[in-house]
């Protein structure tokens, strides 16, 4: 849906991205909430509503989000919500909540310590419990099945995938939070062994611990708090069928529908996009579905291939897209998040500069 009440991003923070952090998830959140509220020029007391995205299976603990509330400073009591989804969906809920018009400032977070366990044993727990989970259907296998469909259809080549990896790693050099970055030769990458044929190491994201926090403010409040609000001018998310075998994996129908609903094609060209393409082959599927041409800069941060903090990766895309407008002079940016096997659910957030 198009925004009925203008809501802006006024501050954000992205934690260091590490293979294994010494900090608990609550401690990661304590830091990014302190930094994001400081970035927005407010205190925790100014936040009216909080929504967190995290996952008990990742944390290895039931109700793990309850401990994370310690990081919010929720006294006097604050309105709070939680989604068992990436923080991008927490931000969506916060944006919807602000539409009610009675609250002005909201905070969305995403956090995850993927190092708590082998992600390949956690991911199946989140799959369909009858047909997929008992087979141990893991994220890399699911992605590899989609990659094969694309390769067989001639919609992508292994060289193209390696080129995407080399580009994102090169772009990530400038990102202090990147876990994987540097100059890589495409031929050398292609000479690497398959990790899960047809995927090689460079086609996969790293395993990352990290968190992100983003502060939203509504209308006049946003203008009062900052001279440089980053307005959310379109926001939508769409899910399609969970079973990958019933979908046409050559395309992303739900990403295309989300882009249409968010008004991506209206209101001028998109300058830059931050996509949650955690696997190289997902980038061309998404750029096609979102209608992004070669003139659009994709993942200047390095994207999820540079750092992939599960449950925060999507929210980081929104923070990085906002950064492109606030700090890199871009006018109109698209942030994308995804969830579920083979790009099952897709979220699109359009950001624009302006007073």
């Amino acid at each position, binding site marked *: 849906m198009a925004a009925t009440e203008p809501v802006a991003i006024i501050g954000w923070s992205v934690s260091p991205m590490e293979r294994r952090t010494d900090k608990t998830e609550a401690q990661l959140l304590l830091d990014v909430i302190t930094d994001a509220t400081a970035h927005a020029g407010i205190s925790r007391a100014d936040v009216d509503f909080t929504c967190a995205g995290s996952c008990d299976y990742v944390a290895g603990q039931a109700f793990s989000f309850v401990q994370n509330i310690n*990081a919010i400073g929720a006294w006097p009591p604050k309105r709070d919500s939680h989604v068992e989804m990436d923080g991008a969906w927490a931000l969506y809920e916060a944006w919807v909540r602000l539409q009610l018009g009675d609250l002005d400032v909201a905070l969305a977070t995403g956090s995850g310590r993927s190092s708590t366990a082998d992600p390949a044993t956690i991911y199946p*727990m989140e799959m369909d419990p009858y047909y997929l989970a008992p087979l141990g259907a893991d994220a890399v296998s699911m992605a590899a099945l989609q990659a094969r469909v694309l390769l067989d259809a001639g919609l992508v080549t292994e060289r193209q995938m390696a080129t995407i990896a080399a580009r994102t790693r090169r772009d990530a050099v400038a990102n202090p939070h990147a876990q994987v970055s540097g100059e890589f030769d495409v031929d050398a990458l292609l000479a690497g062994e398959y990790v899960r044929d047809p995927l090689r190491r460079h086609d996969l994201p790293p395993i990352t611990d990290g968190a992100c926090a983003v502060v939203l403010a509504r209308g006049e409040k946003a203008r009062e708090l900052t001279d440089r609000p980053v307005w959310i001018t379109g926001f939508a998310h769409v899910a399609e069928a969970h079973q990958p075998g019933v979908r046409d994996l050559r395309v992303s129908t739900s990403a295309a529908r989300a882009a249409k609903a968010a008004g991506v094609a209206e209101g001028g060209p998109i300058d830059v996009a931050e996509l949650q393409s955690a696997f190289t082959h997902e980038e061309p599927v998404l750029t096609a579905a979102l209608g992004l041409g070669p003139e659009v800069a994709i993942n200047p941060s390095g994207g999820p291939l540079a750092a992939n903090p599960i449950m925060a990766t999507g929210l980081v895309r929104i923070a990085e897209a906002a950064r492109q407008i606030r700090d890199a002079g871009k006018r109109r940016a698209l942030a994308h998040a995804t969830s579920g096997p083979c790009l099952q659910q897709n979220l699109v957030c359009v950001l624009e500069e302006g007073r």
Partner: protein
Amino acid sequence: MTTYVESTVRFPYKRSLGPVIGQFMTGLTEARLLGIRADDRVIVPPVEWDPETGEQLAHEFVEVGPAGTVRSWCWVEKPTTQHPLDRPFAFALIELDGASTGFLHAVDAGRREAMTTGMRVVPRWRTERRGHITDVEAFVPGDQPLPVERAEPAGEPVTMMTYDAEVHYLTPVTENETRVGQAAAEGRFLGLRCPRCARLYVGGKNDCPICAVALTPQDEVDLPQRGTITNYVIITPVQYPGQTETEPFARVHVLLDGVDVVLMFQPVVDLANDDVRPGVRVSAVWTPPDGTGRRALAGWRPTGEPDVDDPALVNRIH
């Protein structure tokens, strides 16, 4: 310094299957693969609602396969403990003969070079089938159905399934938590006082939940060993895995003298269930040192002092 604790968490789920998945699972016990009709398509494995329209599907089941065509595949060189095979195998989307969709399962092809898109595969059935997706051990290359043992009609329909996953976790233990644990091993309670609001916490908190500031060893305070029961529950034990209690037992919240938060769900010593009530004054009972000199909190014993008469006690939480 942060340390780590290793644990293995089991997720032993029992799930009811409903009329559609149950029919499919019942079919598996008979070594038959079933799909469900959705207009001109046959969806395998069957789902209750049309993936395109969301409409509930009529329960019109169609037998498919057993042979099928690989529409996509990937090679799993190093299987996890949750994968269906313990040797290299392929995951594949298999379009079973007569089906319109891809069925995810394993292909036991032996080596990667044996896999191609478009290849034909057939199921290798387990001898003992219980109505579970792994009743098909794996598909194998080939076009001709393999002989099946005991492919007779099911006696009873399958209505339930189990899913028993295991995840091995490595969880951080913070310095504050470690130091509180070390103090307890010496028979001491270590508290942490917020440097901003001066609230005094038990239990190795890493930050003040009111002020959202980090607590450090500089904020440590030795706590008294006496307090007051603020609330309680009498638990009638259900014999779930790990439950060692067999008779109804008490768990109490204890507010240590001068502390701002309660110690939750504490055991009691020398206090009958009928005598547990808010206001009882108690003191800590520690186990004797073990072989390594470590103590542990055994529970809380009444001191004999008069009860604290404060109706607001029960409202003390966390």
